[in-house]
């Protein structure tokens, strides 16, 4: 599948976050979305997902405007991992993960059938939570809850995954395992990922492309190696950055 933006503008009151963006994201690619706090990464992700209308220009999914898809159809192609979720009332882990099947079920489907349950259990196992099915969400730690949310997205199983800080709250090992699972794991159809990250080194390790948002309307994007450079990152974060070479790779660290 292919996601494209055409002269896309994203504005919030008083500020342009992104102007005349012409992005093309194709099957098999893993995009890192980088930028300082408040630079518009989340707003961009929501716009690409069709959860928010563009302020100018268009977003197309396989040559068709994303707003032309029904909500349900869109949710079968595009999955979003939100930065955070509300929890008005406590539910269990398995109930939450099964909600990923929602876009595929007809309104009157009552019982979650065996296939859905199997998918949900597989997803839980793949994020290392196989024994957590009947636990209440409120009893989980922040990182465990994050993994439940990722398992929900895996159960939704969309070809396109837009992930807003997926490794928030995760410990070092789970950061790597989850990013590896998302970027190299089996993906349905001809899919791709866009991942909002704050860790430049993890972006460099797992992604093929990068999109940098400077927060003033300027965007820089392309193959990771072309975009990710110390002086660009210094400008992106407004902080001096040192470049260190080890094991044949470049690492970036704040000075």
């Amino acid at each position, binding site marked *: 599948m292919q996601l494209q933006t055409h002269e896309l503008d994203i504005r919030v009151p008083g500020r342009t976050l992104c102007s005349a963006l012409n992005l093309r994201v194709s099957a098999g690619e893993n995009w890192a979305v980088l930028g300082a706090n408040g630079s518009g990464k989340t707003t961009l992700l*929501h716009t690409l997902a069709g959860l928010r209308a563009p302020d100018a220009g268009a977003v197309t999914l396989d040559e068709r405007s994303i707003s032309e898809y*029904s*909500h349900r159809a*869109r*949710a079968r192609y595009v999955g979003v991992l939100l930065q955070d979720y509300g929890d008005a009332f*406590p*539910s269990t882990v398995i*109930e939450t993960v099964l*909600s990923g099947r929602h876009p595929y079920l007809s309104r009157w489907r009552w019982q979650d059938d065996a296939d859905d349950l199997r998918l949900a259990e597989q997803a839980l196992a793949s994020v290392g939570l196989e024994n957590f099915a009947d636990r209440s969400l409120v009893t989980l730690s922040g990182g465990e809850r994050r993994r439940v949310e990722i398992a929900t997205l895996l159960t939704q199983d969309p070809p396109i995954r837009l992930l807003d800080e997926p490794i928030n709250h995760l410990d070092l090992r789970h950061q790597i395992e989850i990013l590896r699972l998302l970027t190299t794991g089996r993906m349905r159809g001809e899919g791709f990922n866009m991942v909002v990250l704050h860790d430049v080194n993890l972006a460099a390790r797992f992604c093929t492309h990068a999109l940098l948002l400077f927060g003033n309307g300027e965007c820089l994007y392309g193959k990771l190696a072309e975009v990710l450079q110390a002086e660009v990152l210094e400008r992106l974060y407004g902080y001096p950055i040192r470049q260190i070479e080890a094991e044949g790779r470049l690492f970036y660290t704040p000075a």
Partner: protein
Amino acid sequence: MQRASYLTIVLLLAAPLSMVLALSAGSVDLSLAQLGGALLGHGDDVASMVVRELRLPRALAAFAVGGLLALSGALLQVLLRNPLADPYILGVSGGAAVAALLTILLGLGGVWLVGGAFAGSLLSTFLVFSLSRLHGAWTQNRLLLTGVVIAAGWSALISFILAVSPDSNLQRMLFWLMGDLSYARYPVFGMAVLGAGLLIALALARPLNLLARGDLAAAALGENPARLRVSIYFLASLLTATAVTLAGSVGFVGLIIPHALRLISGSDHRRLLPNTVLLGGSFLVLADTAARTAIAPTQLPVGVLTALLGVPVFLFLLAQTRSQ
């Protein structure tokens, strides 16, 4: 999940039991045989009349009102994402009360009171809906604030009407305000709205589960949260309006029944909503039976009993879950 299904079975048994109790208890206590005879239409005359013309309509109205309020409460708690939401929080009952009290003040009864209450609650529903949408986005906080403020306005009008009403009307008005089933008519209408309302609510059950996690989460999984919220708002308002029209503002049921069930068996709305209707209905049938018989021949407004019975039960439940 399992637990909620077992609970449904228990509640399906409890509902007819509560009805039997309501039909047999009262100033004339009836045996099961007499009751059966009365219902089938070949018992002795007094028993038949008492059951068919007094107790049965009243018990059905009680079940309908209890079910309507509990269902409305469950829906509004998700809509407002606020555990304190009850069916009256957005002013539906206030509008009904002002209209109802005015008809009592004017000496009109019966159909005027019922029609007035229903019209008043619909007026309030549309007023809150349009005012909360005046500028920009329809957020739950705007809706909540608009509803609460309109409700406060209604309650000022209620106080005003009570202050200027002659003493002869006051008891009737107070009973209406506290919730009272002794004048309840049209139980069939109540049951019909309850049935249709539950059916629509069940179609929204999975979307409600998503909405409880937030608007964006629901949108990301293929729902249209804006449309969903409008549907829930009008559905809950209609349920409340019907309940209030039948029995005045019976308190407590709409707030506590959904919460009690969430504590016992979780928040999957596919199971929660039917359980809510069954428990809310049975609970109000029992509370009304107690209201009729507790200090007979004096009849209490049922609203007094719902709180007196409900408060200790709910506090017990809360304590139980906390210690788990």
